[in-house]
């Protein structure tokens, strides 16, 4: 008798718990609906941050890549942005071409569309950001991206990419690569506002984008982009091998442990880490 009563109570409790669990699950699903607005506040006008890179001025020093690594503490062997160096012509009619490559913050971002957990999202300002707390690391966005600017962060264990230095934009500063560019090749700003410098440059120059055929509407614009050099070597098996090599083993020659120590020096101290704010509020 005693046992029977106990069992009854247990069942009741179990049902109660199950019901609460179910309700919480449904509620959770409703709450996790993504509101991109809660990261960067709405300002009334529709902002569209963009970057114009004037390749006629670029001298290929790579300071932008260094500044990016320092600002964002990008691990060794991985790049949020880099400068691709190409060459055209034969001696003595020849020239070097520099093509800085970074996340294009596409208007119609395929990574955003393909992310199964909405970890990648578009802010109202046109930035494409990753919520590192949501990301499961399925790496599908990495293969979706036509520009290959995403990488699997080996220590944070999420996917990572250029954020246009969102933590700096929030304070009214320009991204680190723009500030550091000694040739002033880069211009950053709101392209929907007709009075900004970038809008003037955008309107009065002939503008190219990388891979327009991918229909992602990229927001990194180039002046004087040479398509021939940009696409050079892609059909060369040697370049393919180079493109997919293990950079730690073949170029820097350090162990994984040493690379991790390198990362830990700036971990939590770099500007991007201190002002980390890419978390969707609905997630916390």
């Amino acid at each position, binding site marked *: 008798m005693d046992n029977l009563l106990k069992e009854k109570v247990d069942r009741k409790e179990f049902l109660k718990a199950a019901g609460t669990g179910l309700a919480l*699950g449904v509620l959770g699903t409703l709450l996790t609906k993504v509101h991109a607005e809660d990261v960067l506040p709405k300002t009334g006008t529709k902002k569209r941050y963009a970057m114009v890179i004037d390749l006629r001025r670029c001298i290929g020093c790579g300071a932008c890549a260094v500044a990016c690594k320092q600002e964002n503490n990008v691990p060794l062997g991985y790049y949020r942005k880099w400068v691709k*160096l190409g060459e055209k012509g034969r001696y003595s009619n020849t020239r070097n071409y520099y093509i800085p490559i970074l996340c294009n913050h596409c208007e119609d971002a395929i990574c955003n569309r393909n992310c*199964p*957990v909405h970890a990648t999202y578009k802010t109202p300002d046109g930035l494409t950001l990753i919520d590192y707390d949501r990301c499961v690391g399925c790496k599908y966005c990495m293969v979706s991206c036509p520009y290959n600017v995403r990488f699997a962060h080996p220590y944070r264990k999420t996917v990572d990419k250029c954020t246009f230095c969102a933590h700096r934009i929030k304070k009214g500063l320009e991204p680190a690569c723009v500030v550091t560019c000694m040739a002033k090749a880069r211009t950053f700003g709101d392209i929907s506002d007709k009075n900004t410098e970038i809008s003037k440059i955008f309107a009065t120059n002939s503008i190219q984008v990388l891979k327009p055929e991918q229909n992602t509407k990229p927001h990194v614009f180039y002046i004087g982009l040479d398509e021939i050099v940009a696409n050079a070597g*892609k059909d060369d098996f040697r370049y*393919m091998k180079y*493109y*997919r090599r293990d950079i730690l083993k073949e170029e820097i020659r350090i162990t994984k442990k040493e690379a991790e120590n390198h990362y830990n020096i700036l971990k939590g101290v770099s500007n991007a880490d201190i002002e980390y704010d890419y978390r969707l509020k609905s997630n916390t």
Partner: protein
Amino acid sequence: MEKIIYSVSHEITLSTNIATYFFLTGVSAASFIISSLAYVFGIEKYKPCGKLGAVVAFIVLTVAPLFLIIDLLQPMRFIHLFYMFNFKSPVTWGTILLILYPLNCLIYMYAIYTDKKPMTKFFGSLGIPLAVAVHGYTGFILALAKGIALWNTPLMPIYFLISAMVSGTALLIILAVLKERYLGNVEIINRYFPKIEDDIIHDLRKMLVIFIGVDLFVTFSDVLLLFYSTPENYTAARLLLKGPFSTMFLYGEVLLGMIIPSIIFVTPGLKKNIRLITASSILVLIGIWFMRYVTVVAGQYVPLM
């Protein structure tokens, strides 16, 4: 003359785990469809192999998602996939299908073994579109990654489905022979799986030849069209036929996995030999695994920037 002097390198992100996952879902979907021949389309003589197919479909599909989970950068976060949905993403479609399909398989198995005919028929017919979807979506996963030339083709889901049929049939042949020849005396296996006659194995062999034929045709048209399109597509085609993946593609996938087995399956002197049929079914399975691997890795091998 233009050339690249410096660029940075990028890792290949999806590899063996994903290829194995695609292989296993394919086997599972095809086993289910073959099983439904007996229980949905009512071809009585396939019933013994229908039971085997239903069990294989369920077991293989419970193993398959583990390969996905260990491939995540943070395996413990796989739970996010169940309450954060993005219905535009094929991975989310997969989450839903990978819940529904094994459930359906389980109910279908239960109905078969308790001999409930209307229930079997209902869940069998529900399972066919689910089986097609659970493997077809993997084709869409690759096809919707639009940056990669080798994947971004409408043929990809069809290519995946037909090679799934090939691998599923081959696995059923191997398991049937294994059961009849080597485990024929084990009591517990005989209780759950009725005897599979040689006749049925030969029927499966004929099916397999047809599937391999269609697979060859799809592979051919896929590679042919790569040659007549954008520069990236042309590079991908060269990669398969001349580049680092040519051994795996030409010898592994096409010769070992398709041509040699289909010759053995149709040559009059050889096709009655059950041992040879089993051996070539194993070759077919290896070939299909190579197909998954080549598709997944060679696609990412082409430089994007």
